[in-house]
């Protein structure tokens, strides 16, 4: 997929800004888990709805669907974040929270809290660097079956393309903990490119 709406400079700037946000989220996650979290270089992609589903779904490369948490954010650039969790991340988190026999209700709550932590630190940092404040909606949990009708549920069918900022957290042993995708719909992409130009112009 080409980045047709972003210049190379804009893409680089957005990647670096996302990188700083990811670092904040990674530190929060590492603190929570009491372990070292390996950060990836963020990926920036323009994607169609179908591509988006496949990128999010293939996060752990097993093809198995994982639960996810959505959280919308609002500023003059609005969008939403989707966090999905891998099996290793969920068992680490369960262990941490002392769930021997996880009740799904409690696990939902725990995963929503962790997603909220990741989204809050990462997305807030991205917007701070763009000189903006923002507000968040409450996180919403979806179980694995939500993947089947994700386009309807996240109302992305109305989007032609979305800008996907994709970061990946893994454990030291390579286990996949969680991934966070920030999605900006068509109308927010233009505003984002203008915001990036402002950052680039100040240098």
């Amino acid at each position, binding site marked *: 997929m080409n980045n047709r709406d972003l210049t190379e400079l804009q893409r680089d700037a957005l990647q670096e800004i996302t990188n700083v946000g990811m670092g904040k989220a990674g530190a929060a996650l590492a603190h929570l888990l009491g372990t070292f979290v390996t950060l990836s270089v963020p990926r920036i992609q323009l994607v169609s709805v179908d591509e988006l589903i496949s990128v999010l779904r293939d996060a752990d490369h097993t093809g198995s669907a994982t639960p996810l948490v959505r959280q919308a954010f609002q500023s003059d650039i609005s969008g939403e974040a989707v966090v999905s969790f891998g099996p290793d991340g969920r068992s680490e988190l369960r262990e941490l929270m002392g769930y021997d026999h996880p009740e799904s209700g409690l696990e939902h709550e725990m995963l929503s809290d962790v997603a909220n932590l990741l989204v809050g630190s990462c997305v807030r940092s991205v917007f701070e660097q763009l000189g903006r404040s923002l507000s968040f909606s409450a996180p919403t949990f979806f179980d694995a079956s939500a993947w089947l009708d994700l386009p309807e549920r996240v109302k992305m069918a109305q989007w032609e393309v979305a800008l996907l900022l994709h970061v990946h957290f893994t454990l030291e042993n390579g286990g996949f903990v969680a991934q966070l995708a920030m999605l900006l719909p068509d109308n927010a992409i233009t505003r984002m490119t203008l915001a990036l130009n402002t*950052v680039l112009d100040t240098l």
Partner: protein
Amino acid sequence: MALSVLVVDDSALARKILINSLPPDWDVDITQATNGVEALRLYHDGKASVMFLDLTMPEMDGFQVLAQLRQEGLDVFVIVVSADVQVGAIERAKALGAMAFIQKPINPAKLLPVLKEYGLYE
């Protein structure tokens, strides 16, 4: 004689912000690298008395660069400049020989005290 400074980061924006944060009157000769492999090559070419090193990079990351430099006897003053702000990352970088660790985004207020502390800039 100007001090050789190597700025290592895969992001052009990050390199630019860093270079803009250096004191304007600091007598330095700046070279840039976009990954760890390039950084080591330029270090071997004598381009790095001081190295500003990012951690999260493709090809060869900052930890690998530090490990390699250490194995070779570390004849460079490394300041890690990273978005990875985990306590574990800071400890690991320092254990591998980094003298200082600055959290991104960098600015003169974060950089100056470090340069002064180590006598790199008066």
